[in-house]
């Protein structure tokens, strides 16, 4: 389980996060949603240690991650898998090398075991046989899937996903959502997804945290979100005429 307590983060005069508290449970998909500039990605980066919050704690299974130094964080980081918005694949490496890279650094597996693991991860994301391609040869959706394959190569306990559906067609976006859902079940990992894709919110959101102006404005499940009276949340979720019509029918 991951717990964030009273997280504050500023960039100069811009106070981006203003005391966020939340709990993210294992085996569930938690979505962080909100408008542009609401602090979603900043919260995610504070959680994985890419940003240091000025105040507050990020706690992984009872251990205060924010107070740890680089060395102390390594055991937790080995249990973290992350898919970045632009996939962040190492462009000098092939698909297989990208997936094997964390294993080479931290495992004592033999070469054939590592290749087997890479093949399994690629099969898992429906990219079997694409081992020798370079990231430049992949489409946006394929890059995301390779990013997921790399994230699961070390069998993560914590899976972080930043805007998984940005730049993807609706069909591929649904495939990625389904994949995240299946992997969360398979590894029983604590999955945290930053998104503003409403299909994801309605489809896979076990727990939804809505941020507004750097504050926690609402939290609940995808079943509760359709019946909320919170104006800011309704303005965000049901912004389009299509979604408004869908809510009225619902």
């Amino acid at each position: 389980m991951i717990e964030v307590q009273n997280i504050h983060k500023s960039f100069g005069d811009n106070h981006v996060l203003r005391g966020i508290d939340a709990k993210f449970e294992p085996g569930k998909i938690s979505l962080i949603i909100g408008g542009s500039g609401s602090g979603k990605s900043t919260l995610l980066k504070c959680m994985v240690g890419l940003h240091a919050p000025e105040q507050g704690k990020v706690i992984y299974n009872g251990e205060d991650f924010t107070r740890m130094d680089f060395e102390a964080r390594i055991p937790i980081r080995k249990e973290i898998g992350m898919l970045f918005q632009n996939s962040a694949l190492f462009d000098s490496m092939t698909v297989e090398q990208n997936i094997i890279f964390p294993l080479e650094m931290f495992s004592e597996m033999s070469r054939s075991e590592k290749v087997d693991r890479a093949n399994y991860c690629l099969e898992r994301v429906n990219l079997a046989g694409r081992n020798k391609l370079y990231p430049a040869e992949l489409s946006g959706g394929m890059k995301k899937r390779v990013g997921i394959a790399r994230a699961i190569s070390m069998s993560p306990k914590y899976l972080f996903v930043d805007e998984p559906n940005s730049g993807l067609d609706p069909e591929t976006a649904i495939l990625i959502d389904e994949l995240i859902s299946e992997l969360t079940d398979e590894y029983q990992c604590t999955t945290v997804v930053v998104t503003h894709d409403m299909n994801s919110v309605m489809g896979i959101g076990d727990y939804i945290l809505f941020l507004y102006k750097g504050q926690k404005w609402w939290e609940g499940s995808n079943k509760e979100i359709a019946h909320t009276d919170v104006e800011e949340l309704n303005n965000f979720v049901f912004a389009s005429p299509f979604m408004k019509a869908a809510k009225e029918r619902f």
Partner: protein
Amino acid sequence: MFFTYFGQYLLLLRAVFRRPEKWKIYWKEIIHEMNEIGVGSLGLIAIISTFVGAVMTMQIAFQLVSDLIPTSVIGQINRDSSILELSPTITALVLAGKVGSSISSQIGSMRVTEQIDALEIMGINAPGYLILPKILAGITMIPVLVIMSIFLALMGGLLGGSVSGAVTPADYLNGITDGFRGYTVAVALVKAFVFGFIITSVSAFKGFYVRGGALEVGQASTRGVVISCISILVADYIVTALML
């Protein structure tokens, strides 16, 4: 401002020299970088050094217009100036442009495409993995390139001197061997070592902390080259003052 950047540079170096996660992976990277920096720059350094040596010989001959001075002195002057100054400094300035810009743009691109963040999240010491192999390759291969540059500058001088008729090959060879002191080569190697460290670490520093996109990566690369060049000239003065 200067002290802020210098402090940030020192902190980055501290992270660079942290114990590697797995030497085997780092070793592969070091070999790769040695090939990139050393073999990849060989042709350019060979052409520049040969021509500089040839031109230097002709210019020294042009200035030494006295029957009282033996022409073998041309070889001596060319030898000492090539070993002590021209080969280490020109090689370093050229490599600051070629290798330095490549390092800062490579690392800068990795920063803006979140590849460095990906390394850090995996628990890998990103400064160590990305920069240490480049520094180790720089401080080993740049001295090798400087030695080759010295040899080619002297050979260029032989060629230029004999083709232009400024000095006979026999006089020139006599000049470059007469009164040779091995200590001058040691000075050149110390300079090459220091310059190798500056080129790789300064360029990597500029790339590592870049923020923004492609435009900022280009700007960081240019700044890296400029700062490296100035640092090389300052270090050149300091090493010369200390060792000669």
